[in-house]
């Protein structure tokens, strides 16, 4: 049985690893992000099953999303189309989820659903939350285990 502490620890490690390795960015855990910032975030939903079954939600502040896309694609922020920004944050969410689950359930089977943009205003009360701050903005993650 995975504890909430193990989950948040795995997500933090995964987020840090993904952002450092593929985006050359640093993410520091932070206790929370104000609701007005969260409401502006673009969120991605990634469902998963296998050893564990549930759902991740990962939100990115708009400026950060664009900066990540630019870094990933090797372009200037202004050159990146919104469609490309959405594709990159979907893949970023996919990598964070996969890396977190692989840490928690390294001996188990894992299957990720295709990431999809989600409704940022959806209720996430039952989601276990973890937030991170980068120089370009915040990332908020939530995970719900069934």
């Amino acid at each position, binding site marked *: 049985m995975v504890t909430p502490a193990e989950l948040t620890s795995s997500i933090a490690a*995964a987020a840090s690893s993904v952002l450092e*390795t593929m985006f*050359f960015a*640093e993410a520091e855990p932070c206790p929370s992000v104000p609701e007005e910032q969260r409401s502006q975030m673009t969120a991605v939903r990634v469902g998963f099953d296998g050893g564990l079954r549930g759902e991740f939600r990962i939100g990115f502040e708009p400026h950060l999303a664009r900066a990540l896309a630019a870094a990933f694609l*090797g372009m200037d922020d202004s050159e990146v189309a919104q469609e490309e920004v959405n594709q990159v944050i979907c893949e970023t969410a996919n990598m964070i989820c996969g*890396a977190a689950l692989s*840490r928690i359930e390294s001996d188990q089977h894992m299957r990720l659903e295709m990431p999809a943009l989600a409704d940022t205003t959806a209720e996430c009360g039952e989601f276990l939350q973890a937030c991170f701050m980068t*120089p370009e903005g915040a990332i908020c993650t939530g995970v719900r285990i069934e």
Partner: protein
Amino acid sequence: MRTLVIGISDCQVSNQPDSELVTYALGSCIAVSVWDPSRRVAGLLHFMLPESSIDAQKATSAPCMFADTGIDRLFKAVAEMGADRRRLVVRLAGGAQVLDPQGVFNIGKRNYQAARKMLWKLGILIASEAVGGEVSRTVRLVNEDGRFRVREGNGTEKDLPLHAPSRKEAGNGVPSFAGR
């Protein structure tokens, strides 16, 4: 041997076959070395901070202080001497955590990330590197054969290869593997 000494927030290039480029006392700073084996053009940058956006005036007056403007300056300088970006051997050294045992400021790591980000944007993959840790480093780039010698604070020396696999493991500590 003609020795060019590169100071902090400085970069120099050379197309003289008998030249060597040296920079000392890399703590959290990063040295970016570039070498075109075909044209025998060498360049070395010693920068100290990651992003020029923190000081627009300095970015103009002292571009080599920062990763982004410094690396841009370095690549333009070697190009002016006839170096071809596609042939360049790029190696990094430095980015240590010195005088900051708790890692509060993390300047070394941030400098490294900034260098990697800029190089990726320029379409450059790293040949090899000696970064991180808590030791100060001195580096020497020899134009004749591209040798890049790194001397660490404890006196150990090693030559960074012209081409080497990445030191990094894949995500989750799973070693990337290939070849059966």
